[in-house]
C-alpha cells in the first residue's frame, strides 16, 4: 500500500505538470478572412477559420442571398445583358486541414461537391520584407500555385502552419495573400487567440469518406457547365442549334485556379 502511494503520487504530479504544460503550449484561435475575386466580376466571400496546433477549419459566413436582378450594359459593338442570380443554396463552402489531408466543400451551380485535395509541396520562398497587419509583425513569402504566383504575409507570433483557403505550410499563420494580378486577394480581420476563443473544432469527419478527387471534381464542374448550356438551349426558339460550351474562348478570363497551366 505504501509502495503504491510512493509510485502513484509522483506519477500523478508528473501527469498534472505535463497536462498543464501542454495546455500552456497549445495555440488556438479564430480569424476572419475575406476572399475577394476580381476576374469577370467582383465576388467577395467571408470565412471564419478556427485553428489549433493540429488542424484548421475555415467555414463560409455571411452568405448573401439576393433576388434576381438584371443589368443591361451597352458596349461599343453591341449589347451586353447580364443577369445576376441570387444564391439559394446556403450550404457553406469550407476548407479543412489536418496537416496530412485537406478537404474542401465547393458549390458547383446546384451541386455541393466534397473534395479531397491533391498533395502539394508548399515550398515557399521566404523574403526579408516585413510589415504589420493589425498588431502582428508579418514576413513575406511567395509561391506558385495552380497557374498563379502568390505573395503571402505570415506571422510567427501565431506559430501554426495554416492559412486561408488552401494556403498552408509556413511557420506561422498566414494573414494576407494575393496573386500578382490581384485577381484573388484574401485579407484578415478580427484575429483572436487563446482564452477568449472556443477552440473546439466540430466537423463530421465521417463524411470525408465520400470525398471525390480533384480529377473527379474538375469533371463534375465540366458536366455542370454543359448541363447549364443544355438547359439554356432547351429554352431557345424551335430550330435553333443547341448551345455548346466553347472551351477555346480566347476572351474568357481564367478562374482562380488554372489547372492546365500548373507551375
Amino acid at each position, binding site marked *: 500500500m505504501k509502495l503504491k502511494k510512493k509510485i502513484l503520487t509522483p506519477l500523478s504530479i508528473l501527469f498534472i505538470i505535463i497536462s498543464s504544460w501542454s495546455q500552456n503550449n497549445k495555440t488556438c484561435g479564430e480569424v476572419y478572412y475575406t476572399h475577394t*475575386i476580381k*476576374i469577370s466580376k467582383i465576388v467577395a466571400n467571408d470565412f471564419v477559420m478556427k485553428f489549433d496546433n493540429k488542424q484548421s477549419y475555415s467555414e463560409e459566413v455571411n452568405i448573401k442571398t439576393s433576388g*434576381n436582378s*438584371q443589368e443591361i450594359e451597352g458596349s461599343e459593338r453591341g449589347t*451586353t*445583358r*447580364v443577369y*445576376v442570380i441570387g444564391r439559394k443554396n446556403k450550404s457553406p463552402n469550407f476548407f479543412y486541414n489536418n496537416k496530412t489531408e485537406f478537404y474542401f466543400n465547393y458549390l458547383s*451551380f446546384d451541386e455541393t461537391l466534397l473534395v479531397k485535395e491533391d498533395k502539394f509541396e508548399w515550398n515557399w520562398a521566404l523574403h526579408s520584407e516585413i510589415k504589420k497587419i493589425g498588431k502582428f509583425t508579418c514576413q513575406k513569402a511567395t509561391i506558385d500555385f495552380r497557374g498563379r504566383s502568390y505573395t503571402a504575409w505570415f506571422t510567427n507570433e501565431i506559430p501554426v502552419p495554416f492559412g486561408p483557403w488552401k494556403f498552408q505550410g509556413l511557420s506561422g499563420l498566414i494573414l494576407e495573400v494575393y496573386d500578382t494580378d490581384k485577381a484573388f486577394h484574401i485579407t484578415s480581420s478580427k484575429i483572436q487567440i487563446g482564452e477568449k476563443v472556443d477552440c473546439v473544432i466540430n466537423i463530421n469527419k465521417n463524411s470525408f469518406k465520400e470525398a471525390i478527387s480533384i480529377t473527379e471534381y474538375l469533371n463534375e464542374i465540366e458536366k455542370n457547365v454543359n448541363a*447549364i448550356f443544355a438547359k439554356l438551349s432547351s429554352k431557345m426558339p424551335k430550330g435553333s442549334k443547341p448551345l455548346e460550351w466553347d472551351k477555346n474562348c480566347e476572351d474568357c478570363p481564367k478562374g482562380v485556379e488554372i489547372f492546365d497551366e500548373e507551375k
Partner: protein
Amino acid sequence: MKNILLTLVLVLTVSFAFAGNEIEKASVVEVEETVFTTNEVNRTISIELLEVPFLEYNNLTSSTDYISCRYRKCIIFNGEKYCTEWKPCKAL
C-alpha cells in the same frame, strides 16, 4: 484636261460617298448575354432576352444596316467565365 480633272473629282467624290456607307455597313454588332451567378443558378432563368433584340441598338432598323451580327451566351460562376461560341444572329 479640264474634263479629265472634272471626271477625277467626280470619281473621288462618289468614292468617298460610297466609302462612308461601306464603313457603316461593315459594322459588326455583337450581343453577349451573360448569366452571372454567385453560387447557384436559379432553375427559372428568364428566357425573355433569348429573342435577340440587336436591332434596337444604334437605331439600326433593318438587316441591311449591318453586314455582320453575332451573339453568344456566357455564364460567370465564382469569377470564372464560360461562353458558347459566337453564332450569327438570325435576321428578323
